[in-house]
């Protein structure tokens, strides 16, 4: 049994023009010890998906469907049950550690608070765990760090402290929402290395949410691509990045500036881009939401919601056309 099984999750938010679905009929799983990446542009619903797992949807946000975590349904939890779950069993780190850490409290207060709340341990025991956590995330001089305030650390160190906080109660699932987006590449590489190491040491399950496919390539086992609140493609990281099948995934990968030394791409300065823009909440196109930007769209794409097509056990797309299948390329050649 997977650690997390999400079925038909739909998240509705209140907007100025009435209710709108930010996440639409989403189903996915995270296995024990698995790193799942969720990628998509802003407005694709990836953050709302994460927040619905924690019962942290914005005011007037509603989630329907089913979220089974560690053998029990959590979507119907009460506020109190969610409070016991958050931080203890599911923890989250955010993009900007300056806003997720309290600026006026010392690291010690912030690191020991939920240990004392969830575990009911003594102050000294909590302090001892905090010191261990800080060395786990490789903060130099943990003793001094405990007495310091978040502003005394650089962005990378702050993110390490946020990770230490998230790990304090040994959660089963860690959700990382754009964990390295605000950091320099040199610092980002350090955080990626740390997450990779923690995974080996702790058999942690992690959901990484980002628009950066490079980050997902280094960390994850599988990737789910979202567009306008829906899943468009899910597959093993290597399959998805090397043999993408959905036109949107293909476009995202083609738009990357690339890292190889192939001469052809350095000669041309133009990047390939997907024309147009992702739709705004409340304004998602009918049928397959991507059809307005898709070069392969057929009439059915406009009117019918795409069904999932299983390409292999681990790889599926939501595209009735499947223009990059072997069959389609043979037909194209004819």
């Amino acid at each position, binding site marked *: 049994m997977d650690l997390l099984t999400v079925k038909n999750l739909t998240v509705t938010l209140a907007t100025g023009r009435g209710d709108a679905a930010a996440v639409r009929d989403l189903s996915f799983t995270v296995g024990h010890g698995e790193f799942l990446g969720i990628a998509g542009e802003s407005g694709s619903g990836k953050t709302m998906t994460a927040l619905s797992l924690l019962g942290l949807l914005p005011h007037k946000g509603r989630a329907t469907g089913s979220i089974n975590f560690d053998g029990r349904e959590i979507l119907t939890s009460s506020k109190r049950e969610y409070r016991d779950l958050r931080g203890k069993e599911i923890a989250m780190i955010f993009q900007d550690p300056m806003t997720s850490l309290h600026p006026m409290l010392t690291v010690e207060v912030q690191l020991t608070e939920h240990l004392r709340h969830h575990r009911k341990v003594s102050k000294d025991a909590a302090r001892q765990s905090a010191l261990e956590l800080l060395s786990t995330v490789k903060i130099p001089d943990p003793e001094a760090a405990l007495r310091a305030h978040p502003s005394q650390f650089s962005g990378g160190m702050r993110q390490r402290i946020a990770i230490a906080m998230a790990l304090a109660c040994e959660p089963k699932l860690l959700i990382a929402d754009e964990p390295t987006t605000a950091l320099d590449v040199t610092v*980002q590489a350090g955080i990626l290395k740390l997450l990779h190491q923690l995974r080996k040491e702790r058999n942690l399950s992690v959901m990484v949410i980002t628009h950066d496919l490079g980050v997902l390539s280094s960390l994850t086992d599988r990737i789910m691509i979202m567009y306008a609140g829906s899943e468009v493609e899910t597959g093993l990281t290597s399959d998805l990045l090397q043999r993408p099948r959905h036109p949107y995934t293909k476009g995202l990968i083609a738009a990357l500036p690339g890292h190889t030394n192939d001469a052809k791409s350095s000669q041309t300065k133009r990047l390939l881009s997907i024309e147009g823009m992702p739709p705004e909440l409340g304004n998602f196109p009918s049928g397959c939401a991507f059809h307005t930007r898709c070069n392969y769209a057929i009439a059915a794409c406009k009117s019918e919601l795409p069904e999932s097509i299983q390409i292999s056990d681990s790889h599926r797309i939501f595209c009735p056309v499947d223009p990059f299948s072997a069959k389609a390329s043979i037909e194209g050649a004819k």
Partner: protein
Amino acid sequence: MKEILNVSNAVVEYDRQGLKVRAVAGVDLTLNAGEILGLVGESGCGKSTLGKAIVGILKTAHGEIVFDGSQVKKLTRGQRPKHFRNLQMVFQDPYGSLNPRRKIGAQIADGLVVGGSSRKDALHEAQDLLEKVGLPRNAIDRFPHEFSGGQRQRISIARALAAAPTAIVADEPISALDTSSQAQVANLLVNLVEEYDMGMVFISHDLSIVRRISDRVAVMYLGKIVEIGTVDQIWNNPSHPYTRALISAIPHADGTGFMPQDLPGDVPNPMSPPSGCRFHPRCPLAMPECAEIEPAFRTLSDGRSVACHLQTEGSEPVSISIG
């Protein structure tokens, strides 16, 4: 190739509680017409400060910035000499750089009116500029909040184009944008540089995008340029350990599970820069002399310049590997 911008020994200082902090500590560079010069480095290295000094938003404490034959002076309340109009800047944040209470057309027309057009002609021309950057002509009557980040950045670019620039400093122009918009706006900038034969300083922390669109790259660390050369030289055979570290830290989106290499430590406080080579406390290849002697800029046989004791003036670049 026509040189349109020449920066020599530029120093920019900030006042911090009565102390002088050198954010830019002596930079030399040139920009030619029709060229994109990428300026890269970690946050806090002084690249935005340098960009602002180039267009005159910040004052230089020492050194000279010469644009098209005359020296750039800091902007004041008075009107600038006319030909400085042709030196423009595009900012990172397309939300903060447009006035939320004025219509798009009026904001773009300002530049044209200063250039001598009547308001009426200017509004008409603003429509042409909007079309040029890929927006509908009727956008002149709309307000910034009606547009997405990518569209707003296009508006900022149209506004810069209103002054018929021959050089643009673009400070992280695509960093705040979504993946789809990033490629589109980068392509727009490349097209404009070619079409108008402009020079562009493209400031970015993202070396992989800089590599795609630039002709030359300058790598900055703690207020100084450490290496400057063509994109191929910098990307395929970096000769400074810092350049190598920046490239090795970029993740590869190829699904192979490649783990990028981190560079421990942070950019030091510019109030008390390290002795000798400013990079030596973080440099995996540092030698004893690096802590004592500041490496002078040396030009290698392939034409690039680098400030590192591992390289010798006039020789082939010694290839650098770390980790």
